[in-house]
């Protein structure tokens, strides 16, 4: 398993050879920022293309195929088009909050993005309460959405924002409880520590029944968290035109679009961190030859591959299930997922206390 921290350490000692300490740290922070920005933008472009291709496959179409080979440049064209559209000045909006909302949405997803375990030695923020930090920052996003809906001074946006708020806070409970369940199994909240705990076997196999239940519930709640799939009622086109971002135009709208795709990646990334081992290759105790072959695949490929595979399932949900009504959405969370998960937490505790896990 190659350790990517050798690369960062090499850059660190190279910079330190001709710069003072504080300047080195500054340059490194700038490097991290540029890296984050590039990966963020590239992943967003990839996800736009990916979703359109997957959607096309489900509907027996080809999808984007004109711009560039296999339509690969389509999402670049889309982004450029969004950038050159006019930013319309509206009459009766709350200007400050209207401008603030995209900042909150993007910053929340960027902070959550930096916590993900990208590879062996390639994790940016690693608090000892990392996973807790992650759910704390990702819930700032809902504030951005509420502000966007409220400040637009439009009835559609207000209803969309309130629906989105109700949905995101409700499903946040399930996400939080899933994470508590897996923290019980891991015995640590640090993201690096959780990955390290799975070096012999992934948690979904270690925790068997309760981990599987938690995984399914996490996928459902995560889909609702990023306002997608059957839970896209905050932006139900047929009822609310475009929900909370109806009044946003040009790049302003683009930020919400960007954050939506990145939230999809973050949800999938957290699922792969908690259940499928983060960047950890598939290891089976006793199968040394197999484990060594798996170690040859780079850790970044493992992490991004798992996240993309899980996002495929979430996109699949979107094109398979019809949209829920708001009362169905709330009763699914409060009457089914929450009680099931409270029971599941007790089950997980029993499994750990009596040593039934692998």
């Amino acid at each position: 398993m190659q350790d990517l921290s050798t690369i960062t350490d090499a850059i660190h000692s190279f910079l330190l050879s001709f710069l003072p300490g504080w300047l080195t740290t500054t340059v490194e922070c700038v490097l991290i920022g540029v890296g984050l920005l590039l990966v963020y933008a590239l992943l967003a472009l990839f996800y736009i293309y990916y979703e359109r291709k997957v959607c096309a496959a489900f509907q027996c179409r080809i999808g984007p195929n004109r711009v560039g080979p296999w339509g690969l440049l389509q999402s670049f064209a889309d982004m450029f088009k969004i950038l050159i559209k006019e930013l319309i000045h509206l009459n009766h909006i709350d200007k400050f909050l209207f401008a603030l909302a995209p900042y909150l949405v993007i910053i929340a997803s960027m902070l959550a993005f930096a916590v993900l375990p990208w590879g062996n030695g390639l994790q940016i923020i690693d608090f000892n309460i990392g996973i807790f930090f992650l759910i704390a920052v990702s819930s700032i996003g809902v504030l951005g959405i509420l502000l966007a809906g409220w400040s637009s001074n439009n009835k559609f946006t207000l209803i969309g924002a309130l629906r989105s708020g109700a949905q995101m806070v409700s499903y946040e409970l399930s996400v939080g409880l899933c994470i508590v369940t897996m923290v019980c199994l891991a015995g640590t909240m640090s993201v690096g520590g959780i990955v390290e705990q799975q070096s012999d076997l992934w948690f979904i196999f270690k925790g068997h029944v309760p981990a599987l239940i938690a995984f399914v519930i996490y996928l459902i709640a995560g889909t609702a968290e990023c306002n997608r799939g059957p839970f896209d009622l905050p932006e139900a086109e047929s009822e609310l035109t475009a929900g909370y971002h109806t009044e946003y135009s040009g790049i302003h709208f683009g930020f919400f679009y960007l954050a939506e795709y990145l939230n999809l990646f973050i949800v999938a990334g957290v699922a792969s961190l908690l259940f499928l081992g983060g960047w950890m290759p598939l290891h089976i105790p006793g199968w040394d030859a197999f484990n060594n072959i798996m170690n040859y695949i780079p850790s970044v490929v493992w992490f991004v591959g798992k996240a993309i595979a899980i996002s495929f399932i979430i996109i699949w949900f979107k094109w398979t299930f019809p949209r829920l009504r708001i009362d169905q959405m709330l009763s699914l969370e409060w009457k089914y997922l929450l009680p099931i998960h409270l029971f599941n937490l007790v089950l997980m505790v029993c499994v750990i206390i009596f040593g039934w896990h692998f």
Partner: protein
Amino acid sequence: MLTLDIFGISNNGLLAITALLTGFALVALAMWIAKLISPRSFNPQKGEAYECGIPTRGESMSQFKVGYYLFAILFLMFDVETVFLYPWAVQMRELGVDGLISIAVFFGVLVLGLIYAWRKGALEWK
């Protein structure tokens, strides 16, 4: 223990601030570029709310359904509960059965709260 400090920076707060500023810079830069290259034209009709074509009636920043508020309060109760579960979850193996009993009492009170809200009809969307 694996070395997880990127570039040997052990101050995670600094890294978090870097990520925050990166998010800020992304929005600010994109807004700046968009303002430079996007067209601008003024038309009093364009600034109206996008609703149905005729002028909007009444205030849009108005009162809304109380149901949302009710779910927000329920969320607050359960979210705080989840926060209290985290420290116990980390220390669960060390605390063993004693910790389990203490948390079971806490847990029981909250489940009773959920049952109460359910019986009162707070979970119905009317």
